[in-house]
């Protein structure tokens, strides 16, 4: 098979991988923040509930969660199954929201208490203290760990195959099996490298931009 033919066959897989990556990122970033607020809530039962949930999600494989979201509703409650791609996206968003929430939490907790107190004695509201004082400092601190998670997400997209969603790696493997050629795997490997390489450059750029001050 020619390079062009393989590319055409992989096109849908590329699409699935990029879509899964993009939607997960866009939804999990804000959702993670909401989970963080829950896990830092002053209301104990809520905090306990959210922390337990995060513990379960972080303590079990993402692959298991994908399987559960797809088969669980039907087998447990007789509900209609979600479309495969939707099930994958839902599982990914839940999983990554929990990871992000822990990064946010660590970021928020790393800001010295005096910052919030300075805002308080200057008469700021809680929301103003969060948005005007904390948020930026938190973002600056979490860009490196967030970067790691985001790069991991690029590679985790390959787990979608577990419920037969053909992302790009599955698509390549199908060609390998069918045509007995190995190079499509390298092709896809190069794609992952390029993808995560571009993200790394973007994240480094952001990190540099945020480094206009120390602390």
């Amino acid at each position, binding site marked *: 098979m020619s390079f062009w033919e393989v590319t055409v066959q992989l096109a849908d897989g590329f699409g699935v991988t990029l879509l899964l990556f993009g939607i997960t990122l866009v939804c999990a970033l804000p959702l993670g923040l909401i989970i963080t607020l829950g896990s830092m809530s002053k209301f104990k039962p809520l905090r306990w509930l959210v922390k337990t949930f995060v513990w379960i999600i972080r303590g079990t494989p993402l692959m298991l969660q994908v399987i559960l979201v797809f088969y669980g509703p039907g087998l447990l409650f007789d509900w209609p199954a979600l479309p495969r791609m939707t099930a994958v996206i839902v599982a990914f968003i839940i999983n990554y929201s929990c990871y992000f929430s822990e990064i946010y939490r660590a970021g928020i907790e790393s800001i*010295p208490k*005096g*910052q919030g*107190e*300075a*805002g*308080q*004695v*200057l*008469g*700021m*509201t*809680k929301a*103003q203290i969060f948005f*005007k*004082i904390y948020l*930026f*400092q938190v973002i*600056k601190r979490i860009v490196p760990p967030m970067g790691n998670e985001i790069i991991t997400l690029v590679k985790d997209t390959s787990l979608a195959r577990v419920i037969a969603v053909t992302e790009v790696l599955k698509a390549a493997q199908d060609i390998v099996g069918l045509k007995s050629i190995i190079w499509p795997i390298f092709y896809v490997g190069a794609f992952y490298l390029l993808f995560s390489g571009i993200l790394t450059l973007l994240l480094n750029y952001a990190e540099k931009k945020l480094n*206009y*001050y*120390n*602390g």
Partner: protein
Amino acid sequence: MAFLDVKNIEKSFGKTDVLKGITFSMEKGEVLAIIGSSGSGKTTLLRCINFLETADKGSFTINGETIFDAQQSYSDKEKREKRLHFGLVFQQFNLFPQYTAFRNITLAPGLMRIKNSDKKLSAKEKSAIQDEINNEALQLLKSVGLTEKKDFYPCELSGGQQQRVAIARALAMKPDILCFDEPTSALDPELTGEVLRVIRELKGDDRTMIVVTHEMNFAKNVADKVIFMADGVIEEYGTPAEVFENPKSEKTKAFLAKSLEKI
């Protein structure tokens, strides 16, 4: 009637009684120095006055108006309004690192007078207020001698300069009483002078101030009244001459002897 009247403030953390009934008053334009060994409750007292802690018992008034009474509970909004009678300068400055010196000073006044304003402001009114805030901030920077550092970030300033920005930031909210919690304790010895000088100049402008300090010479020469705190009570109160030259309590004598020894 005194300007600030603090009555019987008590505060404990769990089983530790930190403040055991603090009562004092001060007049407008007075500088009150609070001295005492570490752990005696000086910071906690300032934090209670500034609503960073809620006292368990007691009350305080400014000009006869009750600002805090432990028997009442206050909503966040009420606390926010009441604490603006006071300003607080922290030992660790606590400047906002992402903003320039200028923005550190203008941020809170802008939020209070534009965002938190009860009435709806037109764009024109907003920009007029903002101009006013900016001009005041420039004035304040000038008065703490940092006009040139306007656009510097805190990390680009020395500790003494950061603390002077922090003082300007607190003044921008026009508090009735400005509190300082050991404003020079985090500074290298050669930088304490510039901060103490600024505070002394504020006294010239008739600012009412409460200064918790370990600088005995400052307390002696700048303060109108001195409180010596020990174990959560006011052990001694009087003019600097009374407290330093003629202390009545044994604890005060011991403390003063020890702090002179260091020098």
